[in-house]
């Protein structure tokens, strides 16, 4: 091994260490930012080292590609709204998977031209990287499109969906096996690629709405696995390590999201949630009950004379960009001596930690943000639980109603508070179409309207008290 190769290998090792330490530092908010920078430094080191790899002869394409990619990435990173973070992460997942697939494709054509150095493990890795990368690419585009509202967010279903998808998937596997045994055949490879792209679409369209956090996490895991597979193709340990770390991260987050909904991953990915629940919600609406509306002035009195107010944010807060108004209301209440805490359900929003980022953006100190386990026992001491655009995560039916699609899902004990104020646009049921009996609770008052407008009214009323 020449000195140059040793140095490059050492650079990759240091880069891998930077990734691991960077992730470790994400364990506390104080060091997280430094950790991210360390991770970025590791990436820079890996890129610089790669530029010295002996096989690289032409730098013009590299420079052009890096300038275009960096510029696009920087513009996206600085212009994206925090509420749009889920689709942004979804898009990036797709790009990572796409890049890995393209690397696999380039290697495929290299070996087609000259199969003399091809080994079995490389051909297997090429097919795996190609399949996983392509599925990640198209699946992420659909997921991002759904989150952005370009693609219909409701689950799209058709008869025998899972069976058709399975058969389709098997043809992809068959094409992969065929190519491993009879290497070459660009047309079969093209089928494998296109079919994997189509499968990514088929796989993602039946999943929607509140299940999006799971899909985003799962695609995150796939993008890591694709990178690791590309690492097997080009025999590079840095790719394998970094890819595995991302894969592990995505798998853990997927699992956490599933636990938080008390549903097995198979049910989320293959269950077409919204379609199933449409039937059962019909029985729930049969028992018509009445809700009690409240006007902003009365709600302001309840809030202003409380000792402890717990705010429960949900996706509705993100939709109406109400995070800053929430913080202003909390500030006004704090001025009057009210203690304000935030209760964050793991699946509130459209990706893990979505609510935390939005509230952090609005300058809410993070020690006011509580996880479900930390705060659930405190609801009974709360004078007001203020629900802003959250729905299923506070539905008491999850505790006992076995017919409810969300039965068994751990929920926030908002119904234990002395008063409950729900900010909601209208009485239309949420995404899953499940009636929320919390809205009919005798302690509950509904403040109808756009969350941001309602909050602005509340702020003014509290100021005038």
């Amino acid at each position, binding site marked *: 091994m020449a000195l140059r190769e040793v140095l490059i290998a050492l650079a990759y090792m240091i880069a891998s260490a930077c990734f691991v330490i960077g992730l470790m530092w994400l364990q506390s908010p104080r060091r997280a930012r430094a950790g991210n920078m360390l991770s970025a430094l590791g*990436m820079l080191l890996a890129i610089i080292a790669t530029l010295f790899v002996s*096989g690289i002869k032409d730098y013009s394409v590299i420079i052009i590609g890096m300038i275009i990619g960096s510029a696009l990435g920087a513009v996206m990173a600085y212009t994206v709204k925090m509420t749009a973070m889920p689709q942004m992460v979804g898009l*990036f997942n797709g790009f990572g998977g796409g890049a890995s697939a*393209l690397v696999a494709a380039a290697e495929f*054509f290299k070996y087609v031209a000259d199969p003399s150095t091809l080994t079995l493990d490389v051909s297997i890795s090429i097919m795996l990287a190609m399949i996983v990368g392509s599925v990640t690419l198209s699946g992420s585009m659909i997921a991002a499109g759904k989150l952005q509202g370009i693609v219909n967010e409701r689950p799209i279903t058709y008869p025998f969906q899972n069976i058709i998808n399975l058969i389709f998937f098997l043809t992809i596997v068959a094409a992969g096996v065929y190519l491993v045994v009879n290497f070459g055949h660009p047309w079969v490879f093209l089928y494998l690629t296109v079919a994997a792209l189509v499968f990514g679409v088929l796989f993602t369209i039946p999943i929607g709405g509140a299940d999006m956090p799971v899909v985003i996490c799962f695609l*995150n895991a796939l993008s890591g696995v694709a990178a690791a597979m590309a690492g097997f193709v080009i025999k590079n340990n840095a790719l394998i390590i*970094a890819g595995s*770390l991302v894969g592990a991260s995505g798998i853990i987050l997927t699992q956490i999201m599933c636990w938080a909904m008390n549903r097995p991953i198979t049910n989320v990915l293959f269950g077409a949630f919204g379609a199933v629940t449409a039937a059962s919600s019909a029985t729930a609406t049969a028992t018509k009950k009445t809700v009690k509306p409240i006007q902003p002035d009365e709600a302001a009195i309840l809030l202003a004379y409380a000792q402890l107010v717990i705010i429960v944010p949900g996706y509705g807060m993100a939709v109406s960009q109400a995070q800053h108004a929430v913080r202003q209301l909390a500030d006004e209440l704090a001025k009057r001596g009210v203690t304000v805490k935030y209760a964050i359900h793991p699946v509130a929003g459209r990706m893990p930690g979505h609510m935390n980022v939005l509230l952090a953006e609005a300058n809410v100190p993070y020690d006011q943000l509580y996880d479900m386990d930390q705060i659930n026992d405190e609801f009974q001491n709360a004078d007001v639980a203020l629900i802003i655009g959250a729905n299923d995560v506070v539905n008491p039916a999850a505790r006992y109603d076995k017919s409810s699609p969300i039965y068994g899902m751990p929920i926030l004990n908002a119904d234990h508070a002395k008063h409950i104020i729900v900010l909601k646009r209208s009485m239309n049921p949420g995404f899953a179409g499940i009636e929320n009996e919390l809205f009919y609770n005798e302690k509950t008052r509904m403040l109808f309207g756009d969350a941001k407008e309602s909050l602005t009214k509340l702020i003014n009323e509290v100021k005038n008290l």
Partner: protein
Amino acid sequence: MTEALLAALYIFVIAMFLGFAVITKVPPLLHTPLMSGSNAISGITIIGALIVAGRQEGTLQTILGLIAIILAMINVVGGYLVTDRMLQMFKRKPGEK
């Protein structure tokens, strides 16, 4: 199956376990930055993209490599920058409890 492949599989499996051990301890508070940050790490595939784009082994490979570089760089630069943008917002006001 070569020795090199076995070594690579070792690394793959151990790195997975390392990832599980490290990431389970990341608090839910930081799960969004974790996702965007790990996303940026998966842009490591830039290494492969650079190699295939730069070795001049045919137009098709160079084009595939160029697109791969662009996608991976969006992932790397965008991922790290947006993570940094998010993390700098997380503040604990001193003395406020």
